[in-house]
């Protein structure tokens, strides 16, 4: 047993639901008790979908357990086929049904249904949501994809986008446009928007673009092996990654590709002098492996941040994320325990977090700005506006996303100069975030010593001076000074120590 308060991923059958809900003409018959129907609200409320997920739950109860839950499953299966008339169904069990071992696969096989029935084995007690989505999509592709001629023109499939994906809707649109600019037509996008008959047509494409490795890699690998379709390894999030992706496409289709970059504003936005203040901002990056890897590159190479922490919650990506962190001189944090992530962030006191909804809450608690770059998502991560992450427009969008939580350039200077102004002061936060603004309360001089390292004491004058440093760099100043004092073997921090440390770390 493991005590969990908040989770980054749901159970694997929720992953299967993400695939089923993304598709059309597919129905999921899930052997599960009534409480599991909560998962519908993820799609209807968080993603604001205007239809119910295509899922029939058997909703067995305690009194059914002694009787015949297997018959209940078969009835649900038949009812779903009769009512919704899908082209194919997927069948499986949630965590509780896994324990009663009714074997949905075997049961549905005996029913003699006229449509394909794809059984899912998703181990609820060892795997999680992303695995569930990846495995489900793989099983669907394996069952339905048919050998066939390649299309006459160069085409590709886009693999991986699911329901509840982070910006999946807009990423598909942006990527389709980018590929079209490169002279590549999209054969099928799957699972998002695909029907079972579309899945059958996957092998007609010349290659696959793997947009979301978390949810599409198993299918991409199977198609590579069985239908000889190469797949792209670069996810085009960020300027550099998009350019590399374009080159990768060129390699796959065997001819150089040229593209009009006039829509790409990001490099200039980052180079322009207003962005100077971004230099060396210390950022902590946490999320799913794919988005973390993309953002590590964006943060360091395209924004000029200093990356002080990297990690992911999905163990499937542990290996590449560890290697990535190492190349940044860091040790990766691979965990799905949000308390551990919070502790790491608190210890590093970064100036900004690039994270998930969980880190947004951590940031709120610790007073650190946070930009959301990855699932898990909340309703606000499904914006009405066009807001892709991939390609040129994605790079533009990400630039805006990353600077929005920060205090902006000149404001930062003004705060430093006039930090005691009654309206324009530390506690007010960035001025473009109205909600945080509050009038300055003349603080009663706090005598309580601030939290400090075990053996280091802040003398009163140094402590007072520290408070004059603007809030968005105070954490860093405190940490640097304490590190400096430790290195020098000092047990007390005086005003001089503070400024010596400042000089030491000057850049």
């Amino acid at each position, binding site marked *: 047993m*493991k005590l*969990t308060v908040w989770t980054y991923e*749901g*159970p694997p059958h929720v992953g299967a639901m993400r695939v089923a809900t993304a598709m059309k003409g597919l129905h999921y018959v899930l052997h599960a008790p009534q*409480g599991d*129907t*909560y998962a519908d609200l993820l799609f209807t409320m968080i993603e604001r979908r205007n239809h119910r997920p295509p899922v029939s739950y058997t909703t067995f109860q305690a009194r059914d357990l002694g009787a015949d839950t297997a018959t209940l499953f078969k009835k*649900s299966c038949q009812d779903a086929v009769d009512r919704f008339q899908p082209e194919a169904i997927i069948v499986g069990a*949630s965590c509780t049904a896994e324990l009663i071992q009714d074997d949905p696969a075997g049961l549905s096989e005996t029913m003699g249904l006229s449509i394909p029935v794809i059984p899912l084995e998703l181990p609820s007690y060892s795997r999680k949501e992303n695995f569930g989505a990846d495995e489900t999509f793989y099983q669907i592709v394996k069952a339905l994809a048919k050998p066939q001629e390649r299309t006459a023109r160069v085409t590709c499939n886009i693999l991986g986008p699911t329901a509840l994906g982070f910006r999946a809707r807009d990423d598909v649109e942006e990527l389709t446009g980018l590929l079209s600019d490169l002279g590549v037509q999209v054969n099928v996008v799957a699972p998002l928007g695909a029907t079972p008959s579309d899945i059958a047509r996957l092998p007609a494409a010349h290659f696959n673009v793997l947009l979301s490795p978390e949810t599409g890699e198993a299918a991409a690998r199977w198609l590579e092996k069985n239908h000889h379709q190469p797949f792209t390894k670069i996810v085009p999030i960020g300027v550099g990654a998009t350019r590399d992706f374009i080159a990768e496409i060129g390699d796959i289709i065997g001819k150089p590709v040229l593209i009009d970059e006039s829509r790409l504003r990001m490099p200039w936005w980052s180079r322009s002098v207003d962005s100077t203040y971004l230099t060396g901002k210390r950022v902590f990056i946490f999320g799913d492996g794919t988005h973390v890897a993309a953002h590590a590159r964006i943060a360091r190479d395209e924004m000029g941040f200093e990356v002080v922490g990297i990690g992911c919650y999905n163990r499937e990506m542990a290996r590449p994320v560890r290697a990535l962190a190492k190349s940044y001189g860091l040790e990766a944090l691979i965990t799905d325990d949000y308390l551990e992530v919070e502790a790491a962030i608190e210890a590093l006191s970064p100036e900004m977090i690039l994270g998930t909804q969980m880190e947004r809450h951590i940031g709120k608690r610790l007073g650190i700005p946070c930009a959301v770059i990855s699932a898990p998502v909340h309703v606000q991560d499904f914006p009405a506006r066009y807001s892709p992450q991939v390609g040129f427009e994605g790079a533009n969008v990400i630039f805006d996303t990353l600077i929005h939580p920060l205090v902006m350039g000149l404001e930062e200077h003004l705060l430093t100069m006039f930090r005691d102004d009654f309206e324009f002061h530390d506690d007010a936060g960035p001025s473009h975030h109205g909600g945080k603004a509050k009038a300055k309360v003349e603080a009663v001089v706090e005598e309580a010593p601030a939290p400090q390292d075990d053996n280091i004491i802040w003398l009163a004058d140094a402590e007072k001076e520290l408070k004059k440093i603007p809030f968005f760099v105070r954490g860093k100043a405190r940490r640097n000074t304490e590190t400096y004092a430790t290195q020098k073997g000092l047990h007390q921090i005086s005003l001089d120590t503070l400024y010596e440390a400042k000089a030491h770390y000057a850049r």
Partner: protein
Amino acid sequence: MNALTPSNGGCRTAPVLKERGQREVFCGLTGIIWLHRKMQDAFFLVVGSRTCAHLLQSAAGVMIFAEPRFGTAILEETDLAGMKDAQTEIDREVARLLARRPDIRQLFLVGSCPSEVIKIDLAKAAERLSQIHAPHVRVLNYSGSGIETTFTEGEDACLACMVPVLKSTEARELLVVGALPDVVEDQMLSLLADMGVGPVRLLPARRIDDTTAVGPNTVFALVQPFLGETHSALERRGARHLAAPFPFGDEGTTAWLRVIATEFGVSEETFEAVTAAPRARARKAIAQAAEVLRGKSVFFFPDSQLEIPLARFLTRECGMTAIEVGSPYIHDALHGPDLDLLPAGPQISEGQDVDKQLDRARAARPDLTICGLGLANPLEAEGLSTKWAIELVFTPVHFYEQAGDLAGLFSRPLRRKAVLHLEAAE
């Protein structure tokens, strides 16, 4: 019956459509979301799966990032294979938890679907842990599993498991049963105090040290219509139930208070003196919100067992017509008084077969549909106005001062529909 009985008879003896099929409801674990805020020294430890943890997180909607007083001990492969002893595992997790949270005085071990199916004996665990951690911490257990409880039945199971350990008393006391928001609870206590009714005890009490006790001279009133098990458990301890309509709206609140007033011999003058002003306020507030509800039809999907009392409120005090009133379960001892007052006409249904019920709702095209979160947006997309039912459980809606807010919850979707003009101008 009495002066309030509808002229066309009530619904108490109306035929009930009993359905079994796919149910679109939460499980009893959901109650933890409000119970852990209500009982300030309690922690709820679910012994379950990743699904349980994900449900609690998703149902909470916005995460409560002050460290919540609930968590899930997630069963892993090794627990199922019998490689680890579940009881030892629970002991370890509880010891760790209590060491970190010395403010916890009562711990609830909450059973889930998987823990019930593999038959982890949480009663045994609770008994053992109570001995280990007594007297500082009391450990109890109940099941919030979806194979045994539907949504609000989780609170029922929680309160029922507290009844056997309540202190005994011979005193004549009023016990008010059901979790209410503190502000509403205070209003209720002040109304009862002004009528001279007392002493009044509460279940659940806000903290464990409170003086809630039960015995043969206890009379109890329910403020929530989903407390069937707790009702039986209290009767087993010798307490007597004061059956009454539930305190929603002006009429419901007055009827509920009157039953108690009669029991405690409160004079008519005192009753009038205490209730006249808040009643007038409630009527005024309801009248404002009811303007848009009058003459409109309403359809209830089963969710929280609040459906019957709320249908009574909407039809009698807001002028709506009920088409179907679905409830996950109907208990005559609890819902009877409200069914008596609900004017005959609507189809009363118990249980659910969601696809068939959706067919009925589509055919009836009600002006307002009360349903769960999974159904609301899909029905809106079909042009039906909806009110998501979970808000009725998460919002202060009981007693006089909230009666206007309660009506407002139903009128807002209709008002919104009226104010939005999203089409092109002619």
